[in-house]
Every structure is written in structure tokens, then in C-alpha cells.
């Protein structure tokens, strides 16, 4: 079984593959103009012949960047009469509450390309007004005349009855066979017309470009003898066929970041960690996700872009909390003398001051260099020597002089503030969710993650940090472990205790049938598929619902005591209170359909006994930890040389080709039998 995962990020294209029993990796610059070329180069660098592969998994930022850069297709939107502006009005909220110059989301479809058609369906699914096909025909002609490349259709209450949407879709596809058509009910069958419109419009907007990209990729890969599967990473933490990705590109928005969390989940399971936090620190942001029983939490709905004016997307996404602090985050002092780090960051070019390309803004990586934590000769596997004097100069001129701190003091402050701010993302997925960090562990990866993870863990009392093998390209590795996954939802409202068996069965059967259709298209056999159902529940009168797993429909229509108990318990865990005597209602029924990979080569590699790959190499240098005036003489280790079972006590720096691990004084490291580093933090007094 030969497989590769390729993760195209904004700066780098990472590849991790399992070929002929060995792990291969490569890291190369992304080629924004032609990502296919970047893929070709990364395969070449890793000595991978596509013709020898059985499967390629791929994650890409193309969909999300198309939205952020607003470079999608010329898109039209068809709505129910009277509701042309639902998409523009949105929820009318102003997140930047005190800003008189606030921004709201700008629709991806102009009003002049938004068309109304007479028809109306009610919340019950009843047809109040029949579809006026004459108008539909006229609208189709206008859409064609306007030169639209893509059409989104979102009609009122189509979640309850999609007949009208289907008919409009048929007419569109027949009249304009080359146009990209997205029908809202095919993306999600859930109430809330603005969020559904936005999700549908997003799919339509990115559709033609992503479809074109994936077709080129497929053509390139298929040009030789490669006849394996091509899978695309989706935001929900699973993969889909490249064919489905061309129809539903909106579901690959968070393609990249989630894969690392999937990998962290598998590692957690292997290590027997019931609960842990995946922590991924890159150049511009730090991301955290809570992992329970080997899987990251998945939530429905988030915003693409900035919270205030981004585009809402109402699909399941791995719950990742991101804060604007990474290796490239800029340190700055406000007019009142407050020291801050981020959220602004320098790009890869000219990059941090230490890159020596003339930049004069001090960033977190400069601070790490000044503190002796990074080896200037070994950055990016020795590919880019760093200029410490430039870092010191920038730190002094932008931070130190104003606050009367020397460069080392300023750098220590910057590192601490970055750690504190990143710890908030960890806090958001743990303490804020009612999880005590003292009962968890952290799995840290990403280029800069292992350098800061331990300080962050200490900040919120996480006792154990795990640095996996290949932390620098861990996201690409994660792709090799992702299951095929489909999420289906059907809004279905009623009181628990009053639901009829037939009613529940009908919704259940519809969800299963939709899932089966997709399984058939992707060649998934019945016995490979795992069906899991969830009921979105709330107390009558509440708005926000909580998804509760159910094993059979009888739990909703028969004896409901178990579902009741599960909901009360979960409500209490999340919000510190529950109301076991109050009536419950269901809002939606969800089906999560997965098919696990038939191979487990990547997992097997994660647990494979570790053999050192290099000669032992130990040195030392001065590194600043907590006291700027007193650097500690610190042992430097080369990770590829450390054998399983090897132990060391901090202070120490462990270097490896694409990452650096900082071990604080008193912390104890042991090399796991499979090569992962387990770092047990020194006990801290809680005063």
C-alpha cells in the first residue's frame, strides 16, 4: 500500500507518504499560480513516482483563499419572491460594537445578480404558492445574458421540502449545461435562511475555480498509470472523493488545519490518552482543538474570514480555536505603554528581522532567537541561516527603547506574552468547555509548536506534553489517517416524549437513503460504513441546541430516559447547570457516515518501534528561560539520534530537521518506544 498526503498551505507544500514500507517527506514552497506544479515538485523531491501510488490524499487552501481574496466565479443567486435581500441583510449585527466605521459581511453575489421567483413553501413543508416556472425560465435567460458562471439557489424552507429547489435546479442544468449549480438543500437541510444562503453562495462562488483546479490535478495525476483513489480533505475531519469535492467545494474550506488534529487524535488513541489538546503553531496563528477518545470535537457553523465581516458557513467543522499569535506575529507597544504580540504578522517575505531581508519589525521568532532557543545555523534544516544581530536591533528599536528594557528582557516579555495569548486558545477548548487541563495532555506540532508548547502547558497546568514524530509536517501525516466522512442533517422539530415512531423513522430513513446514495457513488460497501446518529436537543424555550448521540430511533420515540439523562449531563458539563424536570425538544437529526481506511499504514508507523537514525550529537549553549539576566547553560540534543527509552531532564533544547523543542528546567523527557517525546512537566507550586 503506497499512499501520500499533500498539504498545500499559504507558504509551504508539505508531503508525507508511506511508500514501500517507509515514510517519505518533503517540504517545498507553494506555487500559488499553479498549485499542481507544487504538487509535482513535492512528489519529485520525495522521490515519489505517482504511478507507484495506490492513493493520494490532498488538502488545500484554494477554496478558502478564493473567498478571502474574493476571486471566485461571477455568481447569481435565486431566491423566493420577497427575500432577495436576505443574503445582504444577514443578521444585521455589528460585532465591532463601538466602531462607528464598522464593517459587515459583503455578499459574494451582487444585488443585480440576485433574482426572485414566485413560489412559497411553509415551515411544515406545505406548498403555499406553486413554483412559477415561466418566471424561472425568464430568470434563467437573464442569468445567461449576465454571463454568470455559477448559480446558487436558496428558497424559503427548502430544508422542509426541497421540491421547488430541485425543479429550479433541473431547469437550470438543462438550459445551461455548462453552468455550476448549487442547490441549498443539497448542501444542508437545516433552517435559518441567511446562514443557508451564505453557505450555498460560498459553494457557488468557489465552485468553478476549485472544480477547475481539481480537474487539472486529476488529469495530471491520471496522465500516467496512476489509477488509485484521490481523496480530498474536508473541514469535518474526514475525506471525500475528488468527484464530490468538485460538487461541494465549500466543505473543503478548512482542509489543511484539521488534518493535523486528526493525526493528533490517532496518536492520542495509540498512547491511551482519554482526553488531550491538539496544539498547532504556525507562522501567523496558533490553533487548539480538544481531542476526546481519539477524535477532535466537531461543531456546526463558523465564519470564513474575520469574525466581524466574514462569510458564515453552516457546515460541520473540526472545532479549532485560533488566536493570532505565531512565529511571525509582530511585537508592538501601544501609545499607553502596553506591550502586545500580534495579531498582525509578517509574511514569509521579507519575514522576521532575523531572516536578514531588511525587515525591522520584531516577531516571536526573533525573540526565540535572541533568547538562544533557536539555533541560527539549523533553521529549516540549515536551509536559512538567521541573523541574531538584526533581531536584537529590531527588538530594541520597537520594544526595548520605549519600555526601557534591554533586547533580552524585551524578547523574554514578547515570548511570555505570546505564550499567554496562545494559552487562551488552549483555554478556550478546555477550561471554557468545563474541561480541567490538569486531567489532559497536549500534543504539540507545527513548525513553531514544540518551541512554545511546554510554556503554554505550564501556564494552564497541563502536566504532560507529547511531541510526535515529524512535528513539522504533521498535518500531511494526519491526512493518511482520515476516514471517508459524510455529514447529513435534517431539521425536525418536536417535543421529546411526543414524537411518533413513524415520524422519527421517516426522517431517519431519509438520512440513511441520502447516505447510501453517496456510498454507491464512491464505491463504499455497506459493511465498510459506520452510521452514527445525533439528535440536536434543547430545553423548550432555549435556542442553542446540543448534539447528543443516539443509538436508535426508539431513544427518541420510545423510552426517552437515556437521551434525557445524556442531555442533562452534557448541559451541566457545558454551562454548570441543568433542568432535569423541564421539557426537552429536538431541533435536528444528524447522521455522520464514515468509512475507516482499509489500511492503517500511517497509524502503524506512528506506533512502530523507533530506531535512531543518526549519530549521537550533544552540545550546549546559553538559553534564557525565566530570568533575562541569568541564561542557563543548556544541553543541546539532536533528536534523530535519541534512542527509545532515552531520558533527559531540562533545561534542554532538542533540535530536529524541521522543528526545535524547548525543555524547561526540571521537566523530564523520555523517548517513547515509538519515538515520540513524552515531556512530564515539573510540579509547580500553586501558592
Amino acid at each position, binding site marked *: 500500500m503506497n499512499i501520500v498526503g499533500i498539504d498545500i498551505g499559504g507558504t509551504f507544500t508539505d508531503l508525507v507518504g508511506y511508500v514501500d514500507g517507509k515514510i517519505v517527506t518533503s517540504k517545498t514552497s507553494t506555487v500559488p499560480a499553479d498549485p499542481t506544479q507544487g504538487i509535482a515538485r513535492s512528489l519529485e523531491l520525495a522521490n515519489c513516482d505517482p504511478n507507484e501510488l495506490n492513493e493520494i490524499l490532498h488538502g488545500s487552501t484554494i477554496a478558502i483563499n478564493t473567498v478571502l481574496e474574493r476571486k471566485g466565479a461571477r455568481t447569481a443567486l435565486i431566491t423566493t419572491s*420577497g*427575500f*432577495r*435581500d*436576505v443574503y*445582504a*441583510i444577514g*443578521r*444585521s*449585527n*455589528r*460585532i*465591532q460594537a*463601538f*466602531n*462607528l466605521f*464598522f*464593517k*459587515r459581511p459583503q455578499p459574494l453575489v*451582487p*444585488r*443585480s445578480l440576485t433574482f426572485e421567483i414566485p413560489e412559497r413553501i*411553509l*415551515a411544515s413543508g406545505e406548498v403555499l404558492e406553486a413554483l412559477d416556472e415561466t418566471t424561472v425560465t425568464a430568470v434563467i435567460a437573464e442569468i445567461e445574458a449576465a454571463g454568470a458562471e455559477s448559480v446558487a439557489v436558496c428558497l*424559503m*424552507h427548502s*430544508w422542509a421540502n426541497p421540491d421547488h429547489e430541485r425543479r429550479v435546479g433541473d431547469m437550470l442544468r438543462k438550459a445551461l449545461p455548462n453552468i455550476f449549480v448549487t442547490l441549498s438543500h443539497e448542501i444542508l437541510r437545516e*433552517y*435559518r*435562511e*441567511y*446562514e443557508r444562503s451564505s453557505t450555498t453562495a460560498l459553494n457557488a462562488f468557489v465552485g468553478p475555480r476549485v472544480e477547475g483546479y481539481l480537474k487539472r490535478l486529476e488529469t495530471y495525476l491520471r496522465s500516467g498509470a496512476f489509477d488509485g483513489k484521490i481523496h480530498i480533505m474536508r473541514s469535518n475531519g474526514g475525506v471525500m472523493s475528488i468527484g464530490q469535492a468538485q460538487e461541494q467545494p465549500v466543505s473543503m474550506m478548512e482542509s489543511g488545519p484539521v488534518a493535523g488534529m486528526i493525526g493528533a487524535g490517532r496518536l492520542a488513541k495509540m498512547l491511551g490518552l482519554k482526553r488531550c489538546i491538539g496544539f498547532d503553531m504556525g507562522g501567523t496563528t496558533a490553533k487548539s482543538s480538544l481531542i476526546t477518545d481519539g477524535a477532535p470535537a466537531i461543531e456546526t457553523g463558523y465564519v470564513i474570514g474575520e469574525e466581524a465581516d466574514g462569510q458564515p458557513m453552516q457546515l460541520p467543522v473540526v472545532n479549532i480555536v485560533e488566536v493570532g499569535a505565531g512565529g511571525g506575529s509582530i511585537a508592538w507597544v*501601544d*501609545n*499607553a*505603554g*502596553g*506591550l*502586545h504580540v500580534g495579531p498582525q504578522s509578517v509574511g514569509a517575505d521579507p519575514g522576521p528581522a532575523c531572516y536578514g531581508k531588511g525587515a525591522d519589525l520584531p516577531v516571536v521568532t526573533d525573540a526565540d532567537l535572541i533568547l538562544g532557543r533557536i539555533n541560527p545555523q539549523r533553521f529549516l534544516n540549515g536551509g536559512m541561516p538567521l541573523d541574531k544581530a538584526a533581531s536584537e536591533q529590531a527588538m530594541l528599536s520597537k520594544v526595548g527603547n520605549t519600555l526601557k528594557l534591554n533586547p533580552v528582557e524585551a524578547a523574554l*516579555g514578547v515570548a*511570555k506574552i505570546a505564550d*499567554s*495569548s496562545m494559552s487562551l486558545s488552549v*483555554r*478556550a477548548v478546555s477550561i*471554557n468547555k468545563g474541561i480541567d487541563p490538569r486531567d489532559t495532555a497536549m500534543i504539540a506540532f507545527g513548525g513553531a509548536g514544540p518551541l512554545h508548547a511546554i510554556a503554554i502547558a505550564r501556564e494552564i497546568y497541563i502536566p504532560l506534553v507529547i511531541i510526535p514524530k515529524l512535528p513539522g509536517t504533521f498535518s500531511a501525516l494526519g491526512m493518511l489517517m482520515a476516514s471517508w466522512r459524510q455529514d447529513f442533517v435534517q431539521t425536525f422539530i418536536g417535543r421529546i416524549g411526543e414524537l411518533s415512531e413513524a415520524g422519527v423513522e421517516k426522517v431517519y430513513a431519509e438520512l440513511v437513503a441520502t447516505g447510501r446514495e453517496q456510498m454507491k457513488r464512491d464505491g463504499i460497501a455497506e459493511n465498510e460504513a459506520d452510521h452514527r446518529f445525533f439528535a440536536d436537543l434543547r*430545553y423548550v*424555550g*432555549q*435556542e*442553542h441546541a446540543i448534539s447528543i448521540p443516539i443509538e436508535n430511533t426508539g431513544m427518541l420515540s420510545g423510552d426517552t430516559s437515556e437521551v434525557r439523562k445524556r442531555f442533562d449531563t452534557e*448541559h451541566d458539563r*457545558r*454551562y*454548570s*447547570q441543568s*433542568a432535569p424536570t*423541564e421539557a426537552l425538544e429536538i431541533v435536528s437529526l444528524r447522521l455522520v457516515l464514515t468509512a475507516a481506511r482499509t489500511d492503517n499504514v500511517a497509524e502503524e508507523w506512528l506506533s512502530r518501534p523507533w530506531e535512531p537514525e543518526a549519530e549521537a550529537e550533544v552540545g550546549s549553549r546559553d538559553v534564557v528561560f525565566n530570568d533575562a539576566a541569568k541564561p542557563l547553560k543548556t544541553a543541546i540534543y539532536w533528536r534523530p539520534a535519541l534512542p527509545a527509552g532515552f531520558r533527559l531532564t531540562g533545561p534542554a533544547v532538542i533540535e530536529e530537521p524541521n522543528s526545535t523543542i524547548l525543555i524547561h528546567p526540571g521537566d523530564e523527557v523520555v523517548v517513547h518506544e515509538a519515538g515520540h517525546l513524552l515531556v512530564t512537566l515539573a510540579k509547580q507550586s*500553586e*501558592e
Partner: protein
Amino acid sequence: MTPMKNDPITVEVVRNAIVAYADEMAEALCKSAYNMMIYEVRDYCCGLIDTTGRMISQNRGGLPIFLADLGIAVEDGIKKYGLQGFEEGDVLVMNHGHICGQHLNNVVVYAPCFHDGELIGFAANRAHWVDIGGGRQGFGSNATTDIFSEGLQMRSLKIYKAGELNDTLYQIIQDNIRYPDASLGDLRAQVASCQIGAKRYAELVARYGRGVVESCVETIWDQTDKAARQVIERIPDGTYSAESFLDNDGRDLATPLRIAVKVIVSGSTITVDFHGMHPQVNGPLNSGRSGGIAAARVAFKALTSPELDVNEGCFRALNVDLPDGTILSARPPAALGQWSIALPTVIDTILKALAPAVPELIPAAHKGDMGGCSFFGFYEDGSRFLLMNIFGGGWGGRPHEDGESAAVSVCQGDVRNTPVELQEIKYPFIVERHALRPDSGGAGEHRGGLGIELTYRCLRACRGNINFDRTVTPPWGLHGGHTGEVSVAIIDRADGTQQRVNKATDVHFAPGDRITFLTAGGGGYGDPRKRSRTDLDEDIANGLVSREAAVRDYGYAEPQMPRRIAVNG
């Protein structure tokens, strides 16, 4: 490591932590709440208060008019019980009209926070209960004339004493409000939220020590204050005045209410002088002093530090000169049911006063009202329903860009309208139209944003309240921009009759009746004849400005030659 007192790093850690705790309180409250005033309108605020009633931190994303004003509620409890009068497990409820100055629906819940047996502060929140008893229901009634007819007042009462529920108080609440399940559910969420906040703050103090945390908080307040003063110092000293009018108090429809403000800028301080405000009225369109203070604070904050967190330090450079007995400082027993109605206009007027001094910082006027509707009635089975919705309108044109359309008022931040599909699932109405209102934005070089149109058809008999304002003083333009279109509601009866209203209480609706809300547009900024023809062509193509209005207001002529025409300025 022992953190040095006030070292910048510890300060930053404390700064992040105290706001994160308030946010965590808000998350727990919002997600488990039972009424849309909390979970959609976000009519709440959460925060930490010190032992003298000062605001340590406040959550982000709550209602903007709740600006560091939880302290007065807590202070009242401190006066009543003394600092020795609190014990662990106490939770207090407070909505007293005269002390809090807001309508009684806004219930403050707070809990003392202890470390090693020592009282170190309070965690508090305020949330809008869907009902608090009294003579009227739904928001927007103009029928009350004193505070006693507006519901139950609770003045710093312990609903929990040392963890023990006060059954008597609980039952008084339960038996005297409509929708007790919803409000008591909200109370439960408020209590849990306070307990979370108190616990977190105690953890922080346990970690760094009380002295260090409090000294960091002082530093944060000082920094916030300094940032605000730096902005004020750039405004030329002087006394700036402006005046506008609210239509009426909803009872005497012929008498407009005067909103007159003087803004005195002197060095690094701003004084807002409210001596010209209309005297308090008989109806509920009054607030206590906190209303006037809130209005001044919103304007001040928008001007000086919109991006900074809210705390006690934000407003040290602001003086509010507010005599008693005005509609912003009503004496008891004034009715306060509509306490917030005047605030958007007051804020707009304060900003207008400063427009000549800092034209780059002040947009034209926005729609200027709180923009909501409420309908109430009974289902077939006799149970009650109460539909509430909030809608946006146009914001004023800005120095360099058009105003935003369909956005909630300056008094509302992350407040959301209710999805039409949700309304139709829950309530006996069909929404026939939810659209932008073309030609409602005031003409200008930078056009005012558009209001909205929203049409309900009633399926069951019900009643409703309508509360629009600012037709006497429409959303004004600045520097040559035109006014925005004013709000109006149109009732189309099933029998074919039509009625236009701005303010009405307890309007009866029969099945088949329709009501359309048309919300105001924002004022324009700058001379409309200077508007870029490309932008105007786009407005016309998008149907936001009609061809007739373009010709009338913008001097638009059909493009004869190329589409892009050079524009003056």
C-alpha cells in the same frame, strides 16, 4: 518565578485573563438562555467587580449601552450588607428602578468571590428577562405612568444565602411574572454564569496574589485612561452644541422631546452637559441617571477607544453634567419601561456636536431607534406566545465611504435579527417580505445606508406594540448630505383599510392583517452631486437608488458617453 509588581508581562497576562473570564461567563449565559432577548439580542453583560463597586473587566459582545454600569448594582448590596455581610454561596438579584435606572426587565445577578475566606470581589451579570410582571407585556408599551405598574422590584436580595435557595423570594418571582419558566431558566443561567466568574477570579488571585492582581488591574485602568486622553488631546478645545428632537413620548403625540447637548472639550477631558434635555415625562420614556451616563459613555468610547476592552478606566476623562429630572435622569417613581429609546438619538446628537471639530471621525446620523417589534397572543391550546424581533436600518455616510445598510443601532452591537424560518416555525405568522428599502439612504457623496422592509401576515388574532421615532428630526446628513428616509409602520387590514403609525401600544390584529415595518435610512455625507458616477451607476443597477431619485437628488443624467465620467473633487 515571582512576578514583579506591575511588570508589563504580568499585566498582559492579567489583562487577557480577566476579559476571558467575563467572556466565559457570557458564553454560559447566552448559550443556555431561554429568551431571544438574551440568546439573539444579547441584551446582557457580564463582568468582575471589585469590593468598592468598580468594574475590573467586562465581556466583549454584549449590549454597548451596558458600559461599566454593573458596579452601581453591586455597590448597593455592599452598602446594604457591608463587606462582612457576604458569605460563600450567596447570590443576589437586583433590578431596583431608582438605583439601576433601567427598565425592570434588566435583572442584575451577582455573587461574591472569596479567596482564603477573604472577600476579593464580585462576579455579576445583567440580562433582560422576557417579563417581570406589571401591567403590560412585550416591549414597547407606552401605557405605564409609574415604576410600580412596570413589575416586580428586587433590591439586592439574596436569592441564595450560603448556597441555600430562598424559597420565599423564588416563589414571589414565580407567581408574579408571565413566562416564569423562561425567566427562571434565565435566572438559573445567570447564577451559573456568576459562579463561573467568581471561581475563575479566585483562581487568578490564588495564582498571583491579591496585591499583584489588583495592582495590575489599576495599571490596565491607567493605560485605558491614557489611551482615551491621547485622542481627546487631538480635538480642538471648545464648546460644541447640537440639538435634535424625539417625536413624542408615545402618549402626547403632539409634543416633540428636545435633545440638547453641549460637549466641552478641554485639554484631555470631555464634559457632556445635558442641561438642555427635555424634562422627564409621565409615560415610560425615561431613564434614571444611568441612561444619560450610558449615552455619554457610548459616544465617548466610540470616539476615543472603540477597540479597547471596557473597564473602570475607560471613562475617567469623561464628565457628565446631568441635572435631575430630565428624561435621562428621571426622579422616582417615574416609569422607565422605555428607558433606552432616547439613547440612540442622544448619542447621535453628541457626535453631531463634534462633527465640525473632527469631521474625519464623525459619520452622518444613523436610523436612530432601537428598531424592534413584539406581538403577543394565545395559541389554540391557551398557551401564550410572544414574538420579538429586532431589525436594523441605515447608518450614516462616512468621510470616505457609504454607510452600512440594515444594521442595528449604535446602542446594539452583536444583536441579531430573528431568522424568518425560525419565526415561522414557532409563531403564527407568515413573513411575506424581508428586503432592503430602496431610496431610503440619504443622498450624499457618500450615501447613507438603507433601511429594511419587513412584512408580517398574522395567522391568529394577536396584539402588538409599535415604536418608531425620529420623524421630526430624520437621520441627518452632514457637510451637504441629505437626510435619510424616516421609519414608518403600515398596517393593511384584511378588510382593505390602511393605517400608518409610528407609535402605538396594544394594537389588535386579526387573522389576515398585515403589518409592514419600514426602517429609516442613514443620512448622507457630503454633496450628492459629487458622488462618483460609477458608484451611482452601480446603485441604480443594483436597485438601491431609483433612476428618479438619482436625477432628483444627485443631478444624474443618463450616461451619454463613456460610463466613467470625471467627477469633481
